[in-house]
């Protein structure tokens, strides 16, 4: 593989993975804060306002990092992927500009009122500011998913004589059949992350016997929202997304499942390691016929294996794709088990005293981040070797004029800078959690 291309890919992969640590919390957390503010408004109980204020401080740190690490993403389309941008900017520039015009202005304007304006606004107006920040961030998610969906499944375009890809239907771009499930899957994933973080914080306070009142509120809201969201992740959103992949990217589905040979009544591999050169799965633990049934609702349906497709159209890192997908699904299953059990105990009034489960919940917080990251790796590694599926290969999209040395220089720069950001982030969030809800700190 060409080393400049590898570096461009690593550059984007690293910066976007780090970036998405932050929005995946803030988008879900925005919804949870709206719920807290609604409860405060309806009950008149200041407790919920105090709880919302605590999460607003966590939100602010995450949001700031999401903004500063998000700007490089928009830039990199031009700096590192200029041939892609030149060809397809007329299409994906639309959704990216829509994000700027419709959601960034909304978010940034009302974020100030949300974070600094509570004393200047009536409770209802402050609720509205929080709601608009939530709306802006979820709109932002939509435009980004619409952009990615177009790269996964291009629609509404024509190819001009000079080879550039021109938009021919704005409506088709926004109603791409790929958008719906991917958007819901992604946003609900963000709710899982925020819920687990909230429940984990609640468990931490209860186990520490500090801020117990808030601990119970966080635990209750986190567990209920998390249980609902984690179930919705598998059905219907994950299921819908999987059917899209089966329909539009059959080679990707085969690689995700480690299915090398076409089979009628294809199994699902729970465990196993793909041996790509020999085209087989080592040490498989299979659920017979499950893949056929889940994909086509028929136990004997035929699922195409990788052998049906020319090797040049195979995803170029089948091993990583296979494991990413399996880690995502495995963790998702664990979330359902833990959170629905916790919700059941909550319903029976025993959750707050159940120490083993509190310990489990407390240590659960990193795992939604891991699941989300591997979910996105599944989506993007699955798109390979295409940059725009079926239209443009990844190898054709990188900037021709930017040399490997320059890319390596900036990749190392980002690694260093983001290492510092990561340490600062953990330090500041830890301080907020330790300090806990109640009186605000210096600002």
């Amino acid at each position, binding site marked *: 593989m060409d080393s400049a291309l590898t570096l461009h890919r690593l550059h984007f992969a690293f910066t976007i993975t780090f970036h998405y640590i932050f929005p995946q919390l803030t988008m879900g957390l925005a919804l949870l804060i709206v719920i807290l503010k609604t409860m405060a408004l309806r009950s008149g109980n200041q407790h919920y306002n105090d709880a919302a204020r605590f999460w607003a401080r966590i939100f*602010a*740190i995450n949001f*700031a990092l999401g*903004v*500063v690490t998000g*700007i490089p993403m*928009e*830039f990199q*389309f*031009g*700096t*590192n992927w*200029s*041939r*892609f*941008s*030149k*060809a397809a*900017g*007329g*299409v994906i*520039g*639309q959704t*990216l*500009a*829509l994000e*700027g*015009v*419709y959601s*960034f*202005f*909304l978010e*940034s*304007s009302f*974020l*100030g*009122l949300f974070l*600094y304006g509570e004393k*200047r606004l009536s409770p209802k107006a402050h609720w509205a500011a929080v709601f608009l920040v939530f709306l802006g961030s979820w709109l932002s998610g939509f435009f980004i998913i619409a952009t990615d969906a177009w790269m996964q499944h291009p629609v509404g375009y024509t190819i*001009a004589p000079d080879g*550039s890809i*021109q*938009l*021919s239907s*704005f409506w088709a771009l926004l109603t791409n059949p790929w958008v719906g499930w991917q958007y819901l899957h992604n946003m609900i994933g963000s709710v899982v992350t925020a819920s687990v973080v909230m429940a984990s914080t609640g468990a931490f306070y209860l186990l520490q016997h500090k801020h117990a009142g808030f601990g119970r509120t966080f635990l209750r809201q986190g567990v209920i929202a998390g249980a609902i969201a984690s179930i919705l992740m598998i059905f219907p959103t994950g299921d819908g997304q999987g059917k899209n992949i089966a329909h539009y990217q059959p080679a990707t589905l085969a690689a995700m499942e480690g299915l090398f040979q076409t089979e009628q009544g294809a199994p699902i591999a729970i465990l196993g390691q793909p041996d790509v050169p020999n085209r087989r799965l080592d040490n498989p633990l299979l659920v017979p016929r499950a893949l056929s049934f889940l994909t086509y609702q028929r136990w004997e349906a035929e699922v195409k294996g990788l052998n049906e497709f020319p090797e040049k159209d195979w995803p170029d890192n089948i091993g990583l794709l296979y494991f990413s997908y399996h880690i995502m699904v495995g963790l998702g299953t664990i979330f359902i088990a833990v959170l629905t059990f916790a919700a059941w105990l909550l319903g029976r009034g025993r959750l707050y005293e159940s120490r083993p489960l509190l310990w489990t919940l407390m240590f659960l917080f990193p795992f939604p981040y891991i699941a989300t990251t591997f979910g996105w790796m599944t989506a993007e590694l699955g798109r390979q070797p295409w940059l725009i599926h079926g239209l443009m290969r990844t190898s054709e999209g990188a900037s*021709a*004029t*930017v040399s490997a040395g*320059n890319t390596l*220089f*900036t990749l190392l*720069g980002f690694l260093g*800078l983001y290492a510092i*950001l990561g340490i*600062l982030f953990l330090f*500041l969030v830890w*301080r907020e959690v330790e300090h806990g809800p109640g009186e605000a*700190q*210096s*600002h």
Partner: protein
Amino acid sequence: METLWFMLVALMLAIYVVLDGFDLGAGALHLFLGRDEEGRKQILGSILPFWDGNEVWLLAAGGTLYFAFPALYASSFSGFYLPLMIVLWLFILRGISIEFRNHIDSPLWKQVWDTVFAGSSGLLLVFFGAALGNVVRGVPLDTAGEFFLPLWTDFTPNGPTGILDYYTIAVGVHALCALLLHGALWLGYRTRNPRAIPLAARLWWVVAALTALTTVLTFAIQPQVAHNLESKPWGFVFPAIAIGSLLAIRYWLGKPERLRPFLASAGYLLGMLTSAAFGIYPYVLPSNENLANGLTIQNTAASGYGLTVGLAWWIPGMMLATGYFVFLYRRFAKAA
């Protein structure tokens, strides 16, 4: 249609410079103007609710540029790879320093972030000016409309150029001083800082001198500017706005009212930027070697359909955004 989008993108960038300009300028000055924690807090407080929203204008302008002129976005962003990456790092440092400084109540912690904030703000201004200088001077485009510039070569604008030469550095310093002035005037208007207005009065002379210098250099380096003024004399209105506003700053600095000089400074920036845009039109990125390779609005624009449909969502979207800004600035009107 291409010309309309050229004007809209130029307008968005100009609004960006006027808005983010004051918080960048004030940010670069706050170490100097705010001698103690109280003074610094006052300065930062005057920009804290706004800086993020102001920066969004750059993102929205970038997005608009991307879909309206994809070939320009692709060529310029990859060609200016190194300076843009440095700009990104500066943005990151600046964003975290203003957000993080108040998290820990320790003079050392605050000193670190204040220094990072002032340094990154000032450097960003120099880079923005240098970027504008590069666009006006032109870059060595090949027949595919691509180029790559090192950060510097021999610091002259002739022959194999780099990002930084004496012309682009002059424009960079000009931008720095003009926006320091802009920032000082903002602080004069929004805070009770006693040093802001006297500093602005001194900076004014520097800005006036640099305006003269960069104007002379620009005419020498980019012949398109004189050509456009000759063929479309109505274009003199743009430099006239700039010069008129510059004089108005001076005049209003002598009066007790503090909003007017700030607005005049906004007029000066708009005048200078529209002059530059008018000067290089129809080029959006001229070539400094083979004129025929220059990127124009025609050879970089997206399809007619994309531009038309873009207008349909852009206009209501920007009206909404303007509404938020008016609302926000009113809400925080009594902040200082």
